């Protein structure tokens, strides 16, 4: 919620002249009240890995390398098994934009090139978020993503450093 408030403040400030402090404060309070009355169902996307993985944090650049299949081994040398949802899946699209800061079509382009030219393999695609979580739980070296942390048992949550 504090992130949303900060964001609201920035948005309101950018539209209202800096001299109109009173109007700015009133607008901000109305917006916060609205958010308190009607809280949006916003979940952050979390990167998860198999419980045996030693890596507890990754930079955005490292995560990009893993999902663009440039880095296919963990730091300790064991293979990374990458799981994803279909490219039109809303959760996959959110993951690409929020965590990887890539557009889904950019990943599709990389994966198609690898898969259909013989120069590599694409991540393993599963049909649902539940299947993705189960695959990460049961596969050594696996990495994936999920939206609702309440379902996150028996997996590592990987911290993404900006």
């Amino acid at each position, binding site marked *: 919620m504090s992130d949303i408030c900060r964001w609201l403040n920035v948005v309101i400030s950018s539209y209202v002249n800096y001299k109109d402090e009173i109007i700015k404060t009133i607008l901000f309070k109305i917006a916060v009240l609205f958010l308190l009355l009607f809280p949006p169902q916003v979940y952050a996307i979390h990167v998860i890995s198999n419980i045996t993985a030693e890596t507890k944090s990754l*930079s955005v*650049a490292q995560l990009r390398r893993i999902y663009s299949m440039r880095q296919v*081994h963990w730091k300790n040398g064991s293979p990374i098994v990458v799981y994803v949802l*279909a490219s039109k899946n809303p959760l996959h699209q959110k993951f690409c934009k929020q965590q990887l800061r890539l*557009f889904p079509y950019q990943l599709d382009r990389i994966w198609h*090139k690898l898969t*259909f030219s013989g120069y590599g393999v694409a991540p393993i695609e599963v049909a649902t978020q539940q299947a993705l979580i189960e695959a990460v739980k049961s596969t050594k070296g696996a990495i994936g993503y999920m939206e609702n942390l309440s379902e996150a048992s028996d997996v590592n949550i990987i911290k993404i450093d900006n």
Partner: protein
Amino acid sequence: MLTSLKLIIRPSTLSNYIVGTLCSLCIACSLNAAESSNEENSEALQVHGFIAQGVVNAHNSNYINADESLSLELTEVGINASYQLNEDFRLAGQAVYLNGGNRYHAGPRIDYLLLEWDAFHNEAWRASFYLGRVKNNHWLYSATRDIPFARPTIILPQSIYLDGFRDLGMGGDGGAIKISYSDDDFGEIDFNFSRGKSAISDEQSEVVIGKFALGNLDHDLDMQASVYWRPTFSQWRFGFSALDSSFAYDRAQVDNYFDSEFEFQFYTVNALYEGEFWQLSAEIAQQRYVTDGFYFPEFHRDNIAQGYYLQASYKVTKNLSVLTRHERFYANKDDKNGSELAEISGGSALSHFGFQNDNMLGLSYDFSSNFRINAEYHWMQGTARLSPIVQSDPIANANKNWQVWAVQFMYWF
């Protein structure tokens, strides 16, 4: 600049050696892999494929067919498998069936069949070696030119992705090296190198040199290299490629043409921008094409051709994109309107054989994550890139202005 090297091992012997080595390695590694659990095997094996069918029509040209009728000769089907033999070795192969009308000969092909050795890797570096039939991975769309959903348009820019040279430009039997470096400061850098030889079928020979040349066209080992760079978190990517290749023509006992050697050097520079709504790409190419013999024994021609294209696509909605492209190609950079070519040929060549320009407009609509339709219209000027490439046909290619349109449905998994 790259120069031709002649290997002591003859190419045919080399191909046999490669296939033999691949088989031995596969058997050895399969025995090893058989010890793995079934669960691991299910992740080790990946199977993918695609099927695409379209309608295409060329007006004022024999680009697709001789009678310029509406054609279904726009079929592309493929299936591939990748099997991780152990932590360091992977086997992969793809078979395709292609039918593009007169653009290239119709039929099945082994697109690639290779053994990958993941020789070195850490968090920043990765070095892989590929042995077998490898695809050309050097130009912006060369590795996916036959993959309908992984290329920007149905008909690619002919200045670079020349349909008549499809089987030669696609790759060859030999090997490739890929070295990748990733760093938070420098971004992503890729270096690719390959060396190989393409077998030229009689049908491919006819597409390149025409049906009146009765001898054999052979491709010597070629050498290609490319470098790509994407700055850290940038939406731009830049690349450079170089190719050096040579061909030999052995005339038949009774033949209209003579023994000859063709030398071909090809350089490209490219840029790609990937935005949320806009995508831009451009490639500039220069090729040196040396002919010794063929028309008569003392014939010698050293020609430099140039071409480029600029392409932009815009995402109108989540599933709909529009795309436009502007392309220019000059067969001789010093004779851009072909007037000199027409003059010295004594009437066997027309001035529009000296260039080929294309302005195109296209649409792409995604029905789902793996089902798409592409449609496009090309306004062409000039016939420099139409088959047969070595000896243009003044009757079939009589029209300077011609048009092509195509619609293709594609599904992949």
